């Protein structure tokens, strides 16, 4: 069974070691934090100058001077730090973030990423996407495996405008975990009840199978949140 969006976020959270400094993009990546295993110190970076972003502020408790890069009123964790935009992007571009977890429109078999602009988008806007893609030590993509129309998002070559070439190291979807290795896509994990053949059938580039292939260790639910689709 494919995973829910929360299921994808849960799976990624298990792979973030203690001591990670992570930037989380909008969409599925923004769900990761709530699934971190107890006791792991993971600091979330926000482009507008925060290390140590906490949960969203409760209604009525918003601080009008404190937002994250998504414009949400948030809180700060104990041990958080604040800084200006030049330092924030020195953190990104200078290779100091251990992980950037980003949404994607397309990822190619070489790890090229398209996630900032669809063809025909009439007003351009890029934000921090290109800086994160070139700067973080590990760029992981979190996305549904196919588009709403069922088209593969993992492709031979991106047809959407590029964010950065050869930057994605690992792809987490509702069907699989795939590692980018040179020009090869290595199928590491499949969702419970999904076969490698089914994953290949909705992937636009060849997947390499290895003897290490395993099932994604994602329970049906945690704390009442469904992680797999019924």
């Amino acid at each position: 069974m494919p995973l829910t969006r929360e299921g994808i976020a849960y799976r990624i959270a298990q792979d973030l070691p203690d001591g990670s400094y992570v930037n989380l993009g909008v969409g599925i990546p923004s769900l990761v934090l709530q699934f971190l295993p107890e006791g792991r110190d993971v600091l979330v970076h926000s482009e507008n100058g925060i290390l140590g972003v906490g949960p969203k502020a409760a209604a009525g408790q918003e601080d009008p001077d404190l937002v994250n890069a998504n414009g949400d009123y948030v809180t700060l964790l104990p041990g958080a730090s604040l800084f200006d935009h030049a330092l924030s992007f020195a953190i990104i571009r200078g290779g100091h973030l251990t992980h950037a977890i980003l949404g994607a429109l397309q990822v190619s078999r070489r790890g090229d990423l398209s996630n900032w602009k669809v063809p025909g988008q009439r007003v351009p806007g890029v934000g921090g996407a290109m800086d994160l893609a070139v700067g973080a030590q590990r760029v992981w993509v979190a996305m549904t495996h196919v588009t709403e129309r069922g088209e593969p998002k993992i492709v031979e070559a991106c047809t959407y405008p590029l964010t950065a070439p050869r930057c994605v190291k690992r792809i987490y979807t509702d069907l699989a975990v795939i590692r980018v290795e040179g020009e090869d896509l290595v199928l590491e994990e499949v969702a419970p009840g999904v076969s490698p053949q089914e994953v290949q059938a909705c992937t636009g580039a060849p997947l390499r199978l290895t003897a290490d292939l395993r099932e994604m260790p994602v329970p049906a639910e945690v704390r009442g949140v469904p992680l797999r689709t019924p």
Partner: protein
Amino acid sequence: MDKCVPTCDEAVADIPNGATIMMGGFGPPGFPAQLVEALRRRRLRDLVIIQCGGGTEDYALGGLILDGAVRKLISSYPTHPGAWALRDRYLRGEIELEVLPQGTFVERIRAAGAGLGGFYTPTGVGTELAEGKEVRIINGRPYVFELPLSADFAFIKAHRADRWGNLTYRRTMRNFNPIMAMAAKVVIAEVDEIVAVGELSPEEIETPGIFVDRVVATERHPRLLRRT
């Protein structure tokens, strides 16, 4: 030395048509909304605005664009839903738009303020935003050359100030403000509170007064904006 100005209207009274103006802010924090509203009342034309966002609704920068005062916007992420004034004018061909990766946007401003002639960045290599720009291989990796970006005026927003123009910020108000304060000929700071010289501890002053020309105190958060 006293850089305090009584009102936002007086602080922006000498800005001419065609001026290039930087505006700090990322979302509501650190966005000098009252200065921008005063600028709207000037009814200027042909302004070039440097701001990370694209303005919100019909207020502040959104209003300035709606009024037809802006010839060009240099920005990074002007596509949020509230930026309809920009979208409408851009689609009608009534405003120029230059979009930069956010790290390149701020570093170009920092380069101008720090007296540098530009810099090489890996951001944007191999993408349409690097088209036509010089690419140089450094230690085996390609980098794009980017020029400094300066302005005639900078509107910045800080938390506390003294009459010498020393500034402090709270929470995420910093964003572009300390950087833009270095990169314009005339720097105007909108602040929540002006205190006596000596009251701000030297360690907490993020923007030293040397960068600041005018300070004006305004009411805090007269209108919460989701985006600038």
